[in-house]
């Protein structure tokens, strides 16, 4: 399990000194708290029947914590000077992050799904940056783009870098989420703040609840999903001239930049970005074969991509053999088969479910 150590925020601080003594006890309490939240997340995701390995959990937990911290700050700022602000400040900085770890059920499946994809994108970016040989430029930079696309790609790169901040649970990260998960998370934070204020107040004050709600509304109303990395990836892909898409998609995959790859794939295949990233993280190789074939990915790039994705797709345990198997079976996966797969995933969900019920082959 990829539990994270918190640096500044110490759960032990809330306890009396006689609960434990010294640095080792403090450290142990931190680790236990981290493990507990990771376990909660893992339990939630088990219900979604998706692979959620330790590295992904650790990254997810960091993104969740950092965006909750940012939302808490934003709501607090929107409260202006009021009794409500004083009540929220009294909860202490990072209250919502600790509280959401106690209430993991607040996280909707859609939000968890987004966090998982976001974490995968960020983990691969960190990994690619660390593993690229010194002096070797990223593949995408070798493709000359006109200024509008080059600017869009630069904006996307900046947004991607925001996802790769140092993994500190008490830091803040811009919650550049699509509207629905942003809405979900913002109101989750608001609810936790209301709950915290009520617990500390001797008498519940409706004015405080109202003020927090209004502040959360203001935060939600000012959200700009168009400035988020996913929207920027889509804007970038829309502007890429058709003859350049294949080369750029290959380069994006070679650079382990899942967002531009998925956005280009969306334009090419019609598969939404979110689904494309899920396909890349799928435990089953077949959808990945089909996606790569549809995107005209060569064997070498496919191999490198799967090597990068290995920790998420369960290919690590079998080592190089699994990678070789992947490429061998990829070579046998022709365009016609990939087209059939695309047709099956693009058909109405209800039809797919019914066909699955009667054992219709994919």
């Amino acid at each position, binding site marked *: 399990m990829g539990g994270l150590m918190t640096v500044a925020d110490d759960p032990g601080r809330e306890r009396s000194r006689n609960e434990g003594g010294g640095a080792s006890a403090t450290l142990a309490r931190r680790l236990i708290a981290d493990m507990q939240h990771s376990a909660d997340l893992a339990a939630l995701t088990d219900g979604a029947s998706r692979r959620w390995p330790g590295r992904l959990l650790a990254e997810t937990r960091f993104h969740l914590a950092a965006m909750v911290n940012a939302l808490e700050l934003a709501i607090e700022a929107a409260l202006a000077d009021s009794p409500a602000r004083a009540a929220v400040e009294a909860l202490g900085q990072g209250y919502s992050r600790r509280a959401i770890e106690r209430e993991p059920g607040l996280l909707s499946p859609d939000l968890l799904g987004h966090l998982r994809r976001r974490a995968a994108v960020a983990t691969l970016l960190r990994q690619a940056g660390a593993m690229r040989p010194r002096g*070797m430029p990223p593949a995408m930079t*070798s*493709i*000359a783009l006109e200024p509008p696309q080059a600017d869009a790609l630069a904006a996307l790169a900046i947004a991607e870098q925001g996802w790769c901040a140092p993994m500190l649970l008490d830091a803040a990260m811009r919650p550049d989420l*699509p*509207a*629905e998960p*942003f*809405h979900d998370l913002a109101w989750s934070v608001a609810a936790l703040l209301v709950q915290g204020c009520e617990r500390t107040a001797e008498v519940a004050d409706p004015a405080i609840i109202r003020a927090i709600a209004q502040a959360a*509304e203001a935060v*939600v*109303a*000012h*959200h*700009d*999903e*168009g*400035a988020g990395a996913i*929207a920027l990836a*889509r*804007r970038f892909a*829309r502007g890429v001239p*058709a*003859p350049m*898409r*294949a*080369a750029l998609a290959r380069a994006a995959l070679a650079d382990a930049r899942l967002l531009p790859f998925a956005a280009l794939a969306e334009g*090419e*295949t*019609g598969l939404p970005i979110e689904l494309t990233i899920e396909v890349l993280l799928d435990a089953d190789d077949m959808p990945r074969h089909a996606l790569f*074939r*549809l*995107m*005209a990915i*060569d*064997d*070498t790039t496919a191999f490198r991509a799967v090597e990068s994705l290995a920790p998420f797709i369960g290919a690590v345990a079998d080592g190089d053999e699994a990678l070789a198997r992947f*490429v*061998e079976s990829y*070579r046998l996966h*022709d*365009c*016609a088969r990939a*087209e059939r797969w695309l047709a099956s995933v693009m058909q109405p969900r209800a039809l797919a479910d019914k066909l699955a019920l009667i054992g219709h082959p994919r």
Partner: protein
Amino acid sequence: MIALPIEALLDGEGRIVSAGEPLLALQRQAGGAADGPLAVPALAALVHLARRLAIPLSRAVTVADGAMDIDLWVDVRPTEEGFAMAILDWQARRPHEPTFGRDGQAGWPWQIDAHLRFQSFDADAATLGHAPPRAGDLLTAYFQLDTGAAEAEFAMPLIEALALRAPFDGQIGRLRADNAIVYQLSGEPLTEPSGALIGYRGHALRIEGTTAENPASAPDTSLFSPALAQRLDQALRQPIGRIIAHASTISGQHEGPLRQDYADYAADIAVAGRHLMALVDDLADLQAIERPDFTTLREEVDLADVARRAAGLLKVRAGARQIRIQAPTVDEQLIVRAEYRRTLQILVNLVGNAVRYSPPASMVWVRVDEDGGRARAVVADQGSGIDPADHERIFERFERLGRSGDGGSGLGLYLSRRLARAMGGDVTLESAPGQGARFTLDLPLWTGG
């Protein structure tokens, strides 16, 4: 041309208060009134979501417009009166029309083997309007590969794909029989279960017009893009160098004794690595030679001395098969105008080929002489000889006359001839089956500075 952004104001119930004409046209097509509720489903859904969540939205939606799809990028922002909508991008396209990577493209299908020879195709003269290829013909003999008007980044998709065993698209090929007929080739690699490349299959799509102003005088542009050459160098040279070094260390048992069969495996790996390195060198040379600005130096070179050195370099390899190389004697001298390094490269290639294809315990002769004001170096062997019908073909790129597994890249003779011609000379062949081969390097004599 649609002026962007296209703006609209909607009331709290999603009714149009005001809107730009393109949006109103979509509204009318969807059966809605100019002042009625928004009737374009994807846009109405966006407004509904913005209302439900009380949140601004900025995202792509696709709407139908007759036979076309229109991809829009739309901002929807809740306001005190309702919603402000802005369409920031408008792209019309056919519904989900892929641009690459699919089967079923127009054009006739073909399949070639790893030596680029046609194995099968589905085309006849009546349909094509010209003669189809014959089974066994080289693809490069049927089509003259061309960069056309393609960007320099991927000048020769087929050749680049061949080096990387990747699918390719957009390779321009002119019919050699009729230069005005131009095709666009696309294909994907065929591999054995073991991963070995066994050929390509794809489609040839005839395209209108020509890709250059004057095809007959179209410059012979670079076979490889600089990007590929750089990639090959980065991707292959260093790792292969390491493989050779490590395998040589293991096979030489420099780090301690080793089971003999393991040492032999390592020796095999080192040999294979050297072959690969030679191929990378050849490809790098090819990239350099095919550039329009490629030139050679004009130096005073003793052709007899170069011939002796080439023979000396290959003496060990020849000795392993009891082949003797008879080189010019040390007192012979023949001064030519050429580049020393390139002349040595040509002669090493010619003598190397002679050793490779000579029977064990035979002779290879390397002679130099002067004839009609020109200098000649002749390399003759006692091999099986080459059919006159193949005498020109053997100088083509990647042409190996069906031989494989002998460590050659199919580029050596092509490079040798190109280099010789760049120095004002040539490489020619005289041979007949069963009578050995006689390659002649012709160069201009040195006539002073």
